[in-house]
């Protein structure tokens, strides 16, 4: 069964006719060709598919595209400024070497931005707990934690 869906993705209105069972991540990757959002596990554990829906980090592999009907979706492609300047969280990941292969990175950054906005000044332990739903196999989390703490500070300072 095909359904018509409409939403805003990275500030632009998009609409399409998709199979009802189309996942949000499939819509983002295959229909919109925004391939920065990744699929690492398809069971909602790895977090590589994390995007923002109406300002809140969600796992786009475990919801249907039609559940995002009318929503405002932000993917990793929409995080940096239009002139290419990195968001403070992205910049912190670069500065603190918070990424290696880059595959979990978009999900890490999307989750971190949401977390930092809601929990300014979080402790290292709180940052580690915030990553419960984001798996990284390369970095051992050490530098991701450092990056999120620094990015969080930079976001607060930029307010």
């Amino acid at each position, binding site marked *: 069964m095909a359904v018509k869906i409409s939403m805003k993705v990275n500030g632009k209105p998009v609409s399409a006719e998709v199979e009802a069972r189309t996942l949000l991540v499939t819509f983002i990757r295959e229909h919109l060709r925004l391939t920065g959002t990744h*699929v690492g596990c*398809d069971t909602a*554990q790895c977090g590589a598919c994390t995007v923002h829906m109406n300002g809140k980090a969600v796992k786009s592999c475990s919801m249907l595209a039609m559940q995002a009907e009318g929503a405002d979706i932000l993917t990793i492609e929409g995080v940096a400024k239009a002139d290419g300047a990195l968001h403070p969280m992205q910049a912190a990941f670069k*500065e603190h070497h918070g*990424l290696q292969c*880059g*595959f979990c990175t978009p999900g890490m950054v999307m989750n971190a931005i949401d977390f930092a906005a809601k929990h300014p000044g979080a402790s290292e332990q709180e940052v580690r707990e915030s990553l419960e739903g984001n798996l990284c196999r*390369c970095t*051992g*989390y050490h530098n991701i934690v450092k990056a999120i703490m620094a990015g969080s500070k930079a976001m607060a300072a930029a307010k």
Partner: protein
Amino acid sequence: MATSLIGARVARKEDYRFLTGAGQYTDDVALPGQTYAVFVRSPHAHAKIKSIKKDKALAARGVLAVYTGDDLAAAKVGGLPCGWLITGTDGQPMKEPPHPPLAQGKVRYVGDHVAVVIAESQSAARDAAELVQVDYEALPAVVNASKATQKGAPALHDIAPDNKCYTWALGDKAAVDAAFAKAAHVTKLDFVNNRLIPNAIEPRAANATYSRAEDSYTLYVASQNPHVERLLMTAFVLGLPEHKVRVVAPDVGGGFGSKIYLYAEDVVVTWASRQLGRPVKWTAERSESFVSDAHGRDHHTVAEMAMDKDGKFLAMRVRTTANLGAYLSTFASCIPTILYATLLAGQYTTPVIYCEVTAVFTNTAPVDAYRGAGRPEATYVVERLVETAARDMKLDPAEIRRRNFIKTFPYQTPVALMYDTGNYDATLDAVMKMADVTGFARRKEEAAKRGKLRGLGYCCYIEACGIAPSNIAGALGARAGLFEAGEIRVHPTGSVTVFTGSHAHGQGHETTFAQVVADKLGLPIESVDVVHGDTSKILFGMGTYGSRSIAVGGTAIVKALDKIIAKGKKIAAHLMEAAETDIEYDKGVFKVAGTDKQKMFGEIAFAAYVPHNYPLDKLEPGLNENAFYDPTNFTFPAGSYVCEVEIDRDTGVTKVVNFSAVDDFGKIINPMIVEGQVHGGLTQGIGQALTENCRYDPESGQLLTGSFTDYCVPRADDVPSYRLDTRETPCTHNPLGVKGCGEAGAIGAPAAVMNAITDALGIRDLPMPATAETVWKAIQANKKAA
């Protein structure tokens, strides 16, 4: 004069694309006319295939083709080859059973490939895969290697009725037995090195396309070594001319060994792309990764150390049964042999060592290299044994190590390796200071007041990176060379593109290699780009595994740079009307010795491409050089780790509270990247020790740990922040003095953690992973014994 880029914490050139979602991984590649493949996999660990009915699947909406093993056999598609021949103690070659890309007649593990369905969309292919009717006759299965060799165990392959692939040995057995006979004390352990599932976060993927116009193929694949993939696939499986196949390993989301191998899926989509005349893409679901990526470890070992009355090691005797899984994966045979037994000397002067390995087929996924590959298993044997020996002998664990450290180099071990350099006291001294070992008793006491058991464990590991040289590897059974290739292409305006046969899937080669080149040529790092991962661009490559990239791939680049500089000197001599022998070169500046005459690198590059004032009669124009480098020896990174754990008495929950690591990687190009490699390695090592365990049901052979809920990849709150430092003894046989750093953490961490846990509990041994349940049971058993 430019400041040195070698040793600088340069931010990574690759980060921007990864941080903005612009990375291009295999599944991101969408080709015109794209079709999608889904594999039908065996639900049985061991079964005969009585029949396969395709018609319902073929009739389903959007389905283009269904292929089975019979189709591949009819098309004369060969089996997947093994790249290393081991010769057994009986003088016979290992048993190499056929490994068809799609099963023929029988399936041998849960997840084995039975058929492929190709359709217009992924969902159509997935739906139709359910419609392929396979009639199986289930057979008894065996998943444990020790059980597989017992009489009456089900046999997987006709050519190996006892399920043994080989029995292989290294060392002087008679000398070892004699040393044991006169030992003052023998410490013995019997343990399992737990089976692991690599789980790179990017699942494997392959997307192949065939051009009838060019009669050529392009395969995009998540691979650590695209040239090796191409060589194996063309020469051994598909019988295609190599120049007609381009293999591209674009951005690859982690490998850890699991993306070294030529897999069935890669072959099938490549073959099918020609049958259909359309691109065919397969991307693993995570559940497929669990059942079909090559697994790691899975050793059962009995190890003994013979000592004199002062704790001086006299001899070591090791017997290992290694589980190879159902088929021989690409490098499976060399992992529990060449990369394992040769490391058993560790950092010690143990004069004689004997190791016997029996490698066994079981109804499980193939087992191959996983981060460290043989070396973590060897280090675990040595370092658990050494720590236990210290306790047996009532010696301080650091002291027993010092009494046995190798102190003079080069050092020939009794297990074939020649260590070129090292300073083991230096890393041990440094780590003990960093970990505040002297304050441990106080911390233990304080923890006890909180109801926690605190323990401290050491691990002093040795690693061997960059298997070499090729001729010796060949004599030991390698069916490939182990060199690396590099090319330096200087552009007319002086910027540089570097091509390397190494492949980065997280290691940051685009930055590290650029640092090496920019430093030597006196260029800003922005003027140097590194290209890797495409057989149509790179002259050749053996790829990235075994922490070989900087030591072998980096050296190939340096050799090519040497040629660039040598040619540059000729050009400079001509331009400055001096003798070539009078030209001195340093970081981009060509000088006439003893004068103030000089030419910058950019001027030389320009002259080479606009050869108006140029010695055309003696010298070709252009500035482009390549080099192949075959190392003369392995490199030997080493280090000392101290782990401190706290265990909750009531729940058995174990927390790594401190982890200190001091490594000797020789010269370091980018300390930031090296630290990142150590962090990741340590976390995988701690994962092995505390959380990760692949389990199959012993009766049915079903994988019990087939998702991230059942198989615990460490989360951020399972591991601590690490304390790291380095000591430096430069490698003596490569120009950069580098050794490699990618696997060290995974090699050294498991023994450090388990030594700390057994110290905290006051017990001799505990199986990995030390989950809360395992530790709690050990605490209860302790109580009972008391």
